[in-house]
């Protein structure tokens, strides 16, 4: 699990670099265990709970993707609903031609990723705020384009074919498993990407883009890769949403191209912890709790979510998980590096503190 490197100082002392201050094998096992438990849920819990869990898993997948974009690559996109919506339509179209919606889910993900390439080419020239609004315009333009095609429902959408006659309980369970698979794959993709060379490049860009560029880091390629992965992930989530709703509506309440999807994923990330892998999980839980408590009060949950996100962005920029991390130094999914000074070891000293050593956090673009 933990990549190690030995570096010898001039004095002959040895420096060690590991991924984490603690042994992380147990978190790996824990993560697998949690996924197994979650996968067994349909056999134990009521379908009402499953329905809420499906929404939560969709938001978790979206939040992981937005975290990768904004938290690690500094790309604040407010147009991710473009890919969410495209994913729903990339699932709808094969389903209309007789393919099972579940089998069409990979097509939706790949389609979203492929669409990411030309769209990246359009928006990549802009930075920060202008990039943000350009992605928003991009989403609006794609919506206008989709609405032109009457054969896929035009401006009012279509019910999703191919699931008629499905046993409702089985359908809910299958949808749940699909949502779980998408969420787990999204989180795993972020984790693997950040531990790969790309994670290093992104950290270098965060610290100093010009320096990274002149040291040969392929800044453009790194950002492109992040954008395309996020596009594919959001499209997969959009596909699951289409299956969950049994229909695809482009605009209006619950419309797949509504900017509220981006608001939800962004708020979940900011509340949970921007630039931390664990943040989206915490943020999604906060979102679901708020949404369930306030669901009878229409738009209030989004207003409160937005106000909380603004407050956290201003006063605790690494979110709830960041606060926890500062206090306890937990990192379930280490993507940074830890430098051990000679003589240090993983075992805690008797008198308590783990003592000096340099924590090199990955990601979190500022």
């Amino acid at each position, binding site marked *: 699990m933990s990549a190690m490197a030995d570096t010898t100082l001039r004095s002959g002392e040895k420096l060690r670099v590991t991924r984490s201050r603690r042994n992380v094998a147990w978190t790996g096992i824990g993560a697998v265990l949690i996924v197994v438990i979650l996968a067994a849920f349909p056999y134990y819990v009521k379908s009402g709970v499953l329905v809420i869990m499906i929404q939560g898993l969709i938001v978790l997948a979206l939040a992981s993707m937005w975290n990768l974009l*904004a938290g690690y690559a*500094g790309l*604040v996109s*407010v147009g991710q609903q473009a890919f969410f919506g495209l994913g729903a339509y990339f699932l709808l179209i094969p389903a209309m031609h007789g393919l099972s919606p579940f089998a069409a889910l990979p097509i939706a993900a790949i389609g979203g990723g492929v669409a990411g390439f030309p769209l990246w*080419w*359009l*928006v990549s*020239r*802009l930075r*920060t*705020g*202008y990039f*943000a*609004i*350009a992605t*928003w*315009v*991009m989403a*609006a*333009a794609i919506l*206008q*384009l989709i*609405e*032109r095609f009457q054969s896929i429902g035009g401006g009012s959408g279509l019910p999703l074919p191919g699931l008629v006659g499905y046993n409702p309980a089985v359908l809910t369970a299958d949808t749940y498993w699909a949502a779980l698979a998408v969420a787990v794959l999204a989180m795993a993709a972020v984790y693997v990407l950040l531990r790969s060379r790309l994670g290093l490049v992104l950290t270098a860009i965060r610290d100093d883009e010009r320096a990274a560029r002149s040291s040969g880091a392929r800044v453009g390629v790194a950002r492109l890769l992040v954008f395309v992965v996020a596009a594919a992930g959001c499209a997969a989530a959009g596909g699951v949403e289409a299956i969950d709703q049994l229909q695809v509506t482009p605009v209006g309440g619950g419309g797949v191209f509504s*900017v*509220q999807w981006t*608001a939800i994923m*962004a*708020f979940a990330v*900011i509340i949970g912890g*921007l630039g931390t892998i664990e943040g989206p999980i915490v943020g999604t839980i906060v979102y679901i709790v708020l949404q369930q408590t306030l669901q009878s009060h*229409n*738009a*209030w949950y*989004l*207003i409160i979510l*937005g*106000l909380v*996100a*603004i407050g956290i*962005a*201003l006063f605790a*920029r690494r979110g709830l998980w960041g606060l926890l991390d500062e206090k306890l130094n937990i990192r379930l999914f280490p993507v940074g590096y830890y430098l051990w000074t000679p003589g240090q070891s993983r075992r805690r000293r008797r008198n308590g503190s783990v003592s000096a050593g340099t924590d090199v956090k990955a990601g979190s*673009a*500022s």
Partner: protein
Amino acid sequence: MAWVNAVIQGILTGGLYALFACGLSLMFGVMKVVNLAHGDLATVAGYVGVGVIAATNVPFLWSVPIVVAIMAVLGYVLQRSLLQAAISRGELITLIVTFGLSIVIENGLLQFFTANTRGIGTGSSLISASFSIGSQITIAWLDVVIFGLAIVVLLGLQYFLSGSKYGRLIRAVADDREAAQLSGADYRHVFGIAAGVAFATVALAGISYGMTTVIDPTSGTDTILLFAFAAVVIGGLGSLWGTLIGGIVLGVAQQIGAQINISDELLAGYIVFLAVLVIRPQGLTARRSES
């Protein structure tokens, strides 16, 4: 003749889009803030206008300075509190905070005023009056008035920035914040003034939009922010008169699109925007290159 008509209507609409855009452009030019809540604040101004007229029964023309004053004060206060706090924490936080503000305002309006559309009644015959050129071109006086208002606002902004004491302070702070600070200018106060001026234009944009058509909670982002941004990009980032040129290009593209097929209106505008982004990312009027 229908095409000539489309071009004329497009040019006139461009004035409205320039009104949308100049506040966004000003705030970016001075504070380097891209205010994602820009459109929603214009919608708020529209609702304030409706409210002022309903509550006080003042004639429409009297309500305009009231709304402008309210929005200008709101701009100063918002800049000194929330926006300044966000700016001092970096671009990423500023974007997140203004995006949050946008969503909160939009859903707040939805919650308190429902999704019903509202219009600003001028109480005069001007809103529906028009004159004709030839047999096929009919021009609404309202569009002409708004176009004229846009020109007056842009001239006023130009005079304010180049001629007045505060304008010079704003330009000094925008150029080099530290140097201005050393010379005794409190940049936070200057930012507040700039935001107040920008919000005053936002108020005019919101009222004008409410007069030409109807407003609802989503018009802030769906229309005003996106059109304002398209106008800014087409015209050239940071250029004041560029917003008018950008607005006109956008308006003409939309009207020509509508002429081809009524449902192509918005799409045509976005296509021109994306084309400019690809072919000439520095905008049509940019004097210097991007860096």
